[in-house]
């Protein structure tokens, strides 16, 4: 492990966060709010980053897989802490609440501990949305895109941060890959901002929501989320962009470069859209009442389904009033999540799809013991190592979620609240059910629960193994 260089990289990333904090600072100055909260945060980020960069300067820039885990895991922890500072210095939240809110932001979860967002200064609201936007496509990926210092070793970092079992390059060079992905991300964000503005939303709110939609984050500038805006057009636009954000960005790249056919044949995309369509139909049927306009039921159902499936976590109605079957559908969607290579969370469509397929193959092996039957995806045989990685991931995911639920339950909460808050945290969704439902927030949890949930969010965003590796004793003994 090249610890010197790893710390240097983390230092650089702290400087980067300091740079990003200049945006809310500028906004605060522009609208005449207090600039002090952001100046303090910038001071801490720049100061600490500067010290690290100066004292850990090194010529040895080799990065091995272990370094990838250390840099990515370390960066996300440090960045979350830095991102929490403005909440504290602005006097909005206490220490653990600020950390929870910041982690919930960067991991694009969208669970909030702020009871009344209308009391939060606008510059801070923008920072809150920005944390999600930066975390969505990945802050490391951003670094790879703009800073050449990572060189060849960047692939280890890329693999450790990109969601999904396999990391795909869309360009021969990693830096151009990162730039292409970020360009698509920025482009889609701008498009949604424009659409929302045209639909009647104010420029500031449109920007905040565009940031948190594309990141599948879910922070809103309204207390009861999107429903409060009350514009059907806005809901349709957001549904569309949530769906786009839940699709693998490599596919977006292929669409832009005219490789439509490959996109249409993509089995994961078909599966993802199939799940979304099926769930929408089920929820629509369950929700529909005679005398109601079908289009309205469809809007409400598709918004809820897409919001939870892509792990965005926006809310257009209080879905806790829905029939139990619809709630169960939402709970399942919460686990399934978006496509690999998207900004969505959950276990990812590809893992769900491949585990189904390998289950089917296993059943066939029972009937035909001599059968040679590989698991295939897109006509290509899936490596056994990838498959066992997926099973290990699913096991770890379930165990972590159960652990989280146990902690919440130990603090006296009911089963539904415990289970759904753990699932929503590790899946980076946002709202849960029960005491953390559509119109509730997470402020009432004790500090221990908030800390555990915050770590579940980080585990979920970094796909468990990246962070879990740091907790293995053998990792540090090498």
């Amino acid at each position, binding site marked *: 492990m090249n610890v010197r260089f790893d710390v240097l990289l983390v230092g650089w990333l702290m400087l980067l966060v300091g740079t990003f904090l200049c945006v809310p600072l500028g906004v605060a100055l522009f609208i005449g709010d207090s600039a002090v909260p952001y100046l303090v945060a910038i001071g801490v980020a720049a100061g600490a980053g500067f010290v690290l960069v100066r004292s850990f300067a090194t010529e040895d820039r080799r990065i091995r897989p272990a370094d990838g885990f250390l840099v990515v895991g370390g960066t996300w922890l440090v960045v979350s802490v830095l991102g929490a500072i403005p909440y504290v210095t602005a006097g909005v939240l206490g220490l653990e609440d600020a950390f929870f809110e910041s982690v919930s932001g960067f991991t694009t979860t969208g669970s909030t501990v702020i009871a009344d967002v209308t009391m939060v200064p606008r510059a801070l609201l923008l920072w809150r949305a920005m944390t999600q936007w930066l975390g969505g496509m990945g802050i490391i990926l951003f670094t790879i895109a703009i800073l050449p210092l990572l060189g060849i070793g960047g692939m280890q970092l890329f693999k450790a941060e990109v969601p999904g079992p396999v990391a795909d390059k869309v360009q021969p060079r990693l830096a151009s890959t990162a730039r292409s992905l970020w360009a698509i991300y920025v482009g889609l964000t701008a498009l949604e901002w424009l659409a929302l503005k045209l639909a009647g939303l104010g420029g500031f709110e449109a920007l905040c929501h565009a940031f948190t939609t594309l990141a599948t984050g879910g922070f809103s500038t309204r207390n009861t989320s999107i429903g409060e805006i009350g514009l059907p057009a806005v809901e349709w636009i957001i549904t569309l962009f949530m769906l786009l954000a839940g699709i693998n960005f490599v596919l977006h790249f292929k669409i832009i470069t005219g490789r439509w056919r490959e996109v249409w044949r993509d089995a994961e995309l078909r599966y993802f859209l199939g799940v979304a369509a099926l769930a929408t139909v089920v929820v629509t049927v369950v929700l529909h009442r005679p005398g109601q306009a079908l289009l309205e039921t469809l809007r409400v159902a598709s918004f809820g389904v897409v919001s939870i499936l892509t792990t965005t976590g926006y809310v257009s109605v209080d879905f806790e009033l829905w029939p139990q079957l619809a709630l169960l559908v939402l709970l399942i969607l919460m686990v399934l999540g978006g496509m690999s290579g998207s900004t969505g969370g959950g276990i990812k469509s590809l893992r769900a799809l491949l585990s189904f397929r390998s289950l089917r193959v296993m059943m066939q092996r029972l009937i035909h013991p001599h059968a040679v039957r*590989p698991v295939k995806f897109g006509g290509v*045989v899936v490596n056994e190592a990838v498959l066992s990685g997926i099973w290990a991931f699913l096991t770890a995911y379930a165990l972590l979620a159960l652990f989280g639920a146990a902690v919440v339950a130990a603090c006296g909460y009911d089963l539904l609240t415990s289970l759904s808050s753990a699932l929503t945290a590790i899946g980076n969704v946002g709202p849960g059910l029960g005491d953390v439902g559509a119109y509730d927030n997470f402020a009432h949890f004790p500090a221990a629960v908030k800390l555990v949930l915050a770590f579940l969010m980080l585990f979920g965003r970094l796909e468990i193994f990246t962070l879990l590796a740091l907790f293995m004793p053998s990792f540090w003994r090498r």
Partner: protein
Amino acid sequence: MRAIVVGGGLVGSTLAGKLAADGHDVVVVERNRLLLTDLSDRLDVKTLAGNGATVPVLLEAGIEECELLFATTDSDEANMVVALVGSALFHVPRVVARLRDSGHQESFRALAAEGGGQRLAINPEQAAVERILSLLPVPGAVDVVPFLDGRLLVAGFNIPAKSDFDGLLLSHLRLLFPATPMLVVAIRRKGRWIVPHGEDEIRADDLVYFALDPEHVDGVLALLGRSRPAGRNVMIAGATRIGVELAETLEGRGVPVTLVDERRAACEEAAARLDRTLVIHGLPTDRDLLEEEGIAAVYGFVACTEDHEVNVVSALLANRLGAGQTFAVLDNPAFVDLVGELGIDAIISPRLLSVSLALQFVRRGRVRAVAALLDDVVEVMEIEAAALSRLASGRLAEIGLPKGVLVAAVQHENRIAVPGGGDRIYPGDRVLLITTSGDAGRLDGFLGG
């Protein structure tokens, strides 16, 4: 006509023999001198030792006045070079290359086309797959060739001793079985071929070729004392080129396929390429395994491993275990007759098939499709009657068809019929003619005149 055959293996030597019998002056070029001495002893051909892919050797073989060039070595690359030198450098009018790889075939077509003339790439495995695919719908047939866009089959059956056909006069066929219109187009009896007339009769142990509508296959089967197997499954032994390609085509048609091979790596490769086929790792001669995978209920069993003796054994085993019909890939011509008597329904020889294809290419004049049946003695031609053709000049009995030529079917305005002496052919009709290669010259004269 001067013909050069490069490669003196089974394909090259068989082809050379048939070409010589057809009256061509044949030169065989082969590197292996041992093969050559044997060849010049058996056949009336000139032999030349050397690398046929080189210009000096080809010049010595007389490529400058050569009109037919065949590249039949075992190496695709060598055949490619021979064929390209022949087409591009010497502008040989007709060139045939045996190419297994479809990628090579594509480059061959693209490159050889530049020299002008007729070019043909033959893929023995592909030919074998097509043969098996045409045999599968006609259980019990040893040979099936589709004509008139598949609306008419010419199918050969061995006549069993106690069948309705034994001792039957051909002229009675239509009267006795009006529900099953069929025409006997050729009979092979004790190694001799007959293009039959109404007075000929069918005997047990004959190999009889019928022209029939695909819908009436089951009727003919019933008369032969056979029935269509119940299952739909096809089991293939051997994940070879033939096996995998066959499985791919069948699964594309929705047929459930089981593919067995003893080589783990071949199984994995096949499983990667195939989607719905059940790939089984095991010996195709393992009785328990075959039974476990439901051999008793399969519609067809195809043995196509690299080891042709294994193919015979596993096909016999499958036949014993109750497979609906069995096929074995086998190249050794000496075995063909022997095996047919043991209960394997049909033998598929990729090499002999490529010889047939090459011969058809040579013999083809203005005809639309030619298939040489089994020994390449009987030929079936599909032609279109031209406006001023003698075919369309009057009633069939009056137009003076040469001896040994039979009109098997006429497609007139989308209707297919077996014509009698009183019927006539109209310009634009598609006509199926049967003849032996000995009489083919007379037929050509008739059609040309």
